[in-house]
């Protein structure tokens, strides 16, 4: 038997190749400048901004309430979460108390949206890994959530449902029953997803031990949401800094537990999303049982002028922390509106962890972060 060829002998010249901005597996218009040595990536530098739409500038130029439709476009997979986060932030700034029912409705739609967002994340992640079927199944269930939202607010994707001081409409009759029906239908399907693909040998082999992030690194680099929890660190803003009615609800913070491979690898981040859907269904069921009656809109003047001040509010959206830093000078529009998003910080660590992986693992890494480009670019 001959001697195995050493890695040094195989070393070739380095290449610089562009991945994106139009590439089917980069989840949008992300461009990566890869420096590769054969199949091994020695450096991957994300180049963002291909979807920079200037949302922060728009926030300074339109009135407080009119910025609401733009938050839908901030994270189009989880428009409800962004809507509600912005509304909560402005209410915190202006010191508005919103009716009890509106809080519960917001939590209900946020959690439903978290399910639908994770479904696309799961589906497109599997599609990137070479299994197209899960995408179809994920979107099949997402359609149901979309229909529910269309019943509530009339749009499938850009909801514009939350308002400063409550929500725009009360729940339509029959909505809670339909939601319950959806929960009954959806909960067994999560197990089916696991049977379908999660423990598939090929998927596991492509994900385990890839892109390992330790909890310490994850905090240092500012990761949040499922990406941070995948590293085994139980940090959820719904628990750490509770807002709305989350303290009254019973749910677990899902963390990665090194099911296959090392703690903090792609597979852990994948599994956190799957288990989070289960927790969201749990929250939705509790909300359905406990939602009180009453008005859904507080009294807010039509020309809304919050007092001068500054406020930073953060909420847990499916991609991590969505934070709004608002500065008001007492006028009809924001003086400064800064949005902090989870995907942007996930791109921060990308350059570090993509050293030495194969090109095909880059796709797994992007998929496991579940980034969404309007959030990174805003």
């Amino acid at each position, binding site marked *: 038997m001959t001697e195995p060829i050493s890695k040094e002998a195989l070393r070739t010249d380095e290449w610089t190749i562009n991945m994106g901005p139009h590439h089917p597996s980069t989840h*949008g*218009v992300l461009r990566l400048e890869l420096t590769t040595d054969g199949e091994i990536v020695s450096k991957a530098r994300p180049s963002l901004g*291909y979807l920079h739409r200037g949302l922060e500038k728009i926030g300074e130029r339109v009135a407080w309430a009119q910025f609401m439709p733009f938050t839908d476009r901030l994270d189009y997979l989880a428009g409800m979460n962004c809507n509600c986060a912005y509304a909560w932030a402005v209410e915190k700034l202006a010191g508005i108390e919103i009716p009890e029912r509106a809080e519960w409705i917001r939590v209900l739609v946020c959690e439903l949206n978290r399910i639908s967002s994770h479904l696309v994340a799961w589906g497109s992640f599997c599609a990137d890994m070479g299994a197209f079927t899960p995408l179809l199944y994920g979107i099949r269930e*997402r359609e*149901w959530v979309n*229909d529910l939202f269309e*019943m509530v607010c009339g749009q499938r*994707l850009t909801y514009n449902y939350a308002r400063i001081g409550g929500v725009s409409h009360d729940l339509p009759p029959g909505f809670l029953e339909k939601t319950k029906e959806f929960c009954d239908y959806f909960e067994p399907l999560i197990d089916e997803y696991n049977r379908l693909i999660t423990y598939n040998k090929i998927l596991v082999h492509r994900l385990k031990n890839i892109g390992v992030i330790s909890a310490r690194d994850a905090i240092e680099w500012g990761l949040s949401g499922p990406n941070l929890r995948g590293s085994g660190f139980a940090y959820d803003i719904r628990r750490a800094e509770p807002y709305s009615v989350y303290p009254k609800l019973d749910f677990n913070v899902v963390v990665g537990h090194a099911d296959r491979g090392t703690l903090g690898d792609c597979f852990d981040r994948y599994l956190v999303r799957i288990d989070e859907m289960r927790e969201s269904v749990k929250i939705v069921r509790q909300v359905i049982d406990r939602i009180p009656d009453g008005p859904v809109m507080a009294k807010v003047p039509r020309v809304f002028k919050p007092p001068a001040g500054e406020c930073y509010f953060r909420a847990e959206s499916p991609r991590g922390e969505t934070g709004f830093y608002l500065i008001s000078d007492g006028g009809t529009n924001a003086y400064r509106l800064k949005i902090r998003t989870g995907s942007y910080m996930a791109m921060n660590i990308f350059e570090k962890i993509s050293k030495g992986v194969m090109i095909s693992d880059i796709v797994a890494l992007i998929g496991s972060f579940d980034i969404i480009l309007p959030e990174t670019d805003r």
Partner: protein
Amino acid sequence: MSQGPAKRKPIKSNIFDVVPAPAEIPQNVLQKNFERVRACKGGEGIIEVGIADLFINWCRKNSLWYLYYATACCGIELMQGGASKYDFDRFGAVFRATPRQADMLMTAGTITHKMAERVQRIYAQMPEPKYVIAIGACTITGGPFYKDSYSVVKGVDLILPKVDVYVPGCPPRPEAWIEGIRNLQNLIMKTKNYGLKKA
């Protein structure tokens, strides 16, 4: 409590009723407007298309492979339209990952100035004949970012030589996309391929 998937009822219509379409689809605001605008312009000329053209056009219209090109919100509707509930494949529209195999560019999502050159390059890479459908408010006029944004291209027709069909909506429902694709198919059937002078 939870019923197993086996006992489920058919999930074709989760929430809403699905009914057969009426023989005459009710005209909405926009379609009435089209008639008025066309009447002002004097209407479209009638093109006589020969048998060979008919055959070529028929082939082209039923294999409109589209580029999987999604930048923003409309891209999710593109995924949902391509998936099982709406299923663009029924019209011969199959997604392709590379522009070299695509016939149709559906510009799904906002195009920024940084992205504009790439869109032009993608368009140039597509083989002839190629068609462009501008989907959603962002690519028709700039949409939500028309007024206050400094980095959004105000309409894809400013950077591409021609746009065949505009589909309004923000984002348009997948049904509206299908209608747009069918509109393009009708347009293709009217095309005259032979007897035209080469420019």
